């Protein structure tokens, strides 16, 4: 039989993460293999081509396209300043002269004798790519970027918004069941990756933003609050570019859901340590989950160079781990009503299809809750909690 599998979110107190950091277009790589880097080290840079603007010169001068070159003051490849004339007509009466000014500062790329358009390009914009992690460069890709590796603790969230952030870990609540309220957030949390419990509301988020918190990691958020934060209803879970003032990572789901105890305890044990995080999420083929990466201290010995025995078992930036299937005794999280958010252990894995209250038949598992109650759950409605 083909594998039946249960994707789970990764949570590890000690692992090795590798991140492939690649420029969007070719450029220059500034680091070498084996080099120690911090999250903010620029490892590669490039220049993004400027925007293209089109000016229909023939319409503005009242000429035909075939004549355009006759009226041009500039040629392809010439640099121009905003407002500088690109072309002009030559009327008999001089004060009737019309000039076509350049709308931008840049260079002339093309002059078309068919449509009479002139294409101008803005100057390129520099782009610097940072390492994102405190760690070591283990591989470089000439002209493209590098792979950075770090020995770390790793927590993956289920959903996030906002991009990459770096800060020290701080915890503002006493337990994973607590809501992160505005009163618990202080100015001392500026620049931190702040860990909450079961929920953050709109007021808590506003306070965090005001205090200059770098990122929030919390169990859940109400969708109505997310809508308010973003100013729109989020349609598809492809995020990471939002500009909402800070990065938000939710570990469990939408609604008030206590953060998994093991996740909470791991983050609490890292208070005061520097970490990297990202809210980028893509729930489609090629799944990307938000994450918190806390490099281990003291920093481990630099890894051997490539070819000297590569470290096996490193995470290649893969966000979801595919388990080999469920076993009796595995700890699981239920991810759908009516037991949404509960954590329990698998007590049996019946092979036959069972009838659900909806009338559907599905493969199920039996689980035991903390209070000893035995329940039946469709196998597809659980996540394996991996150590």
């Amino acid at each position, binding site marked *: *039989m*083909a*594998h039946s*599998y249960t*994707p789970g979110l990764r949570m590890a107190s000690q692992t090795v993460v590798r991140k492939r950091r690649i420029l969007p277009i070719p450029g220059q790589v500034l680091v070498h293999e084996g080099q120690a880097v911090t999250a903010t080290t620029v490892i590669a840079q490039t220049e993004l*081509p400027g*925007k*293209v*603007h*089109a000016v229909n010169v023939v319409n503005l001068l009242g000429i035909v*396209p075939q004549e355009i070159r006759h009226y041009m003051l500039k040629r392809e490849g010439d640099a121009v300043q905003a407002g500088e004339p690109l072309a002009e007509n030559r009327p008999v009466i001089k004060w009737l002269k019309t000039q076509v000014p350049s709308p931008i500062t840049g260079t002339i*790329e*093309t002059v*078309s004798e*068919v*449509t009479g*358009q002139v*294409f101008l390009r803005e100057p390129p914009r520099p782009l610097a790519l940072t390492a994102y992690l405190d760690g070591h460069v283990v591989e470089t890709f000439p002209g493209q970027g590098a792979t950075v590796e770090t020995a770390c603790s790793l927590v993956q969230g*289920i*959903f996030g918004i906002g991009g990459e952030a770096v800060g020290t870990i701080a915890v503002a609540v006493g337990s994973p069941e607590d809501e992160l309220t505005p009163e618990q957030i202080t100015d001392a949390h500026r620049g931190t990756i702040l860990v909450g419990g079961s929920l953050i509301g709109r007021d808590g988020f506003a306070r965090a933003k005001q205090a200059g918190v770098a990122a929030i990691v919390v169990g859940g958020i*109400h*969708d*109505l609050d*997310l*809508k308010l934060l973003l100013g*729109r*209803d*989020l*349609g*598809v*879970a492809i995020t990471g570019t939002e500009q909402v003032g800070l990065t938000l990572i939710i570990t469990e*789901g*939408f*609604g008030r859901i206590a953060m998994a105890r093991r996740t909470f305890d791991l983050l609490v044990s890292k208070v005061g340590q520097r970490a990297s995080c990202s809210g980028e*999420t893509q*729930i*489609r*083929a*090629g799944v990307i989950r938000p994450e918190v990466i806390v490099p281990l201290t003291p920093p481990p010995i630099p890894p051997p160079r490539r070819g000297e025995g590569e470290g096996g078992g490193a995470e*290649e930036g*893969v966000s979801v781990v595919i388990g080999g299937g469920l076993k009796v005794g595995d700890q699981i999280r239920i*991810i*759908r*009503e*009516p037991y*949404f958010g509960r954590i329990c252990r698998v007590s049996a894995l019946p092979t036959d299809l069972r*009838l*659900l*209250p*909806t*009338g*559907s038949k*599905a493969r199920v598992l039996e689980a035991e809750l903390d209070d000893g109650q035995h329940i039946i*759950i*469709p196998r*597809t*409605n659980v*996540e394996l909690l991996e150590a």
Partner: protein
Amino acid sequence: MQVSAKDAIDVTTQWTQMKAILATDCGSTTTKAILIEKVGEEYRQTFRGESPTTVEAPFDDVTRGVLNAIQEVEELSGRKILDGEKILTPAEGGRGVDIYVSTSSAGGGLQMMVAGVVMAMTAESAQRCALGAGAIVMDVLASNDGRAAHEKIERIRVLRPDMILLSGGTDGGTISHVVELAEYIRAADPKPRLGGSFKLPVIFAGNKDARGRIQDILGDRTALVMADNIRPVLERENLAPARHKIHDLFLEHVMAQAPGYGVLMGWTGAPIMPTPAAVGLIMENAARAQGLNLLGVDIGGATTDVFSVVDGQFTRTVSANLGMSYSISNVLAEAGIEKIERWLADPLAEQEMRNRIKNKMIRPTTIPQTQADLALEQAVAREALRLALDQHKALAVGLKGVQMERTIADAFEQEEGGKSLIDLYRIDLIIGSGGILSHAPHRVQAMMMMIDAYQPLGLTQFAVDSIFMMPHLGVLSEVNERAATEVFLKDCLVPLGSCLAADGRAKRGEPCFAYAIRFADGRLAQGALRFGEILRIDLPPGAEADLQAEPSKGFDLGAGKGKAVKLQAKGGVVGLILDARGRPLYLAEEESERVAQLRAWAKAVDLYPTEEG
């Protein structure tokens, strides 16, 4: 190469002698394999297997998932199909298969950008052409689309399509506008989505007089291919040549770049097709074979495809962000919470509803375990189906910009070009596909989702795709149409039954229509429905009944207001639904009244049976 008549006969004989056929569909998450075998004198789908698709890291090879799915078919059927990683052909004594075919939508399917001079004319034709070829259209560019030149260029640059279809101008007409579009494409210098170092394929299917100029502008920067003009004259669309070029380029450029497809292409006995193109093909063939006007929908996790074949004219649209898992939250965003809430007989608080929908989005593989959760998903599905049909209606239209000759009589009935082809009175059959419809716990739920969303008029048949094998059958129909059609009718489609619905409004409780049903065994059932009522009558699959109905004077059953109809109703697993709830469907504004309405309807059709029926 020319094929002689003898060769053609040999090929036909070869195909008709096929004993076993293997087909796969490589979807973005699952690869599904089916085995079709000749049972007696007819082809039947016998076994199926599935496995996660392996086109992405850490596997990066689509053939792994294909082999796993085939292995499952082997295990279930006991038929040896694989020799290591080789498919055994031909079939001999219970081993191997005669042909292997496949479709693919893995890695995001075929993503295109189209451009035309006038938005409502050549750009719209280009959009229909790309959609018909199975593509997702990322953007439609036109000279008059309201965007400034730099915005168009920036858009072309930012999107990384698999290919661009450029059209514009009738043959012999002006070339400057389409050349201008080519200049924008050159200025943007777009890169293909896959295989960054390759040139982006561009198909030029516009004014043939512009070819020289287009070649000068795009020839060195792109992989430029010329095709016949999709709109050679305003009055005619000619989509087939450009559509074929899209398929060729899909194989040469897109598929060849995707991990493992080079090997997979070597295994198949016919070219790999984009999944939606194959679904469209089987629907088109079925409509033609049975002389039906047909509407089909495939509602997936991320996208919803709608197909129609009306008077032989095929149209496909894809609503790229309407779906039941990845895109479920976008249905909420587009429809609004009130539109979803209106279908719930047990209302939920807005916050709870929103959180549940978002949780489905972030955990797309979960299934409803409670009745309330199921009802919420089916409410969202009604809205997704409705929105996708609205988008389809906007594109399934007659040609715009065409001068029509009018008679004096027409002067009283002014109709603009671009009238929608989807006249619900004329749709004979509606086919539903996709998990929410094919796997609804009770078939009546699938039928009611479609009736509520589409609000058919007159008499309409309904069916669902049993296990989503339309893609397999579409690609198979290219090599063995008989096998594909037989399996489509016998194993693929589950007939749900028929629905007779009246157009019109009245006060609740006023007479809507009277009916008399004569069953094949001579039994007679008759009665009358009042406005706001719905009735389900048992009429099993394969059965037919004579149906006579007489509407009240404000209602129309297809023959005109107040005019009686005599029809032949076909049965199905649900039976015959008589719908007097009005069109547009009337749902009370006031919540308690609406809830009472929904509960009465659910009871009338036995929407949530207490025991497995």
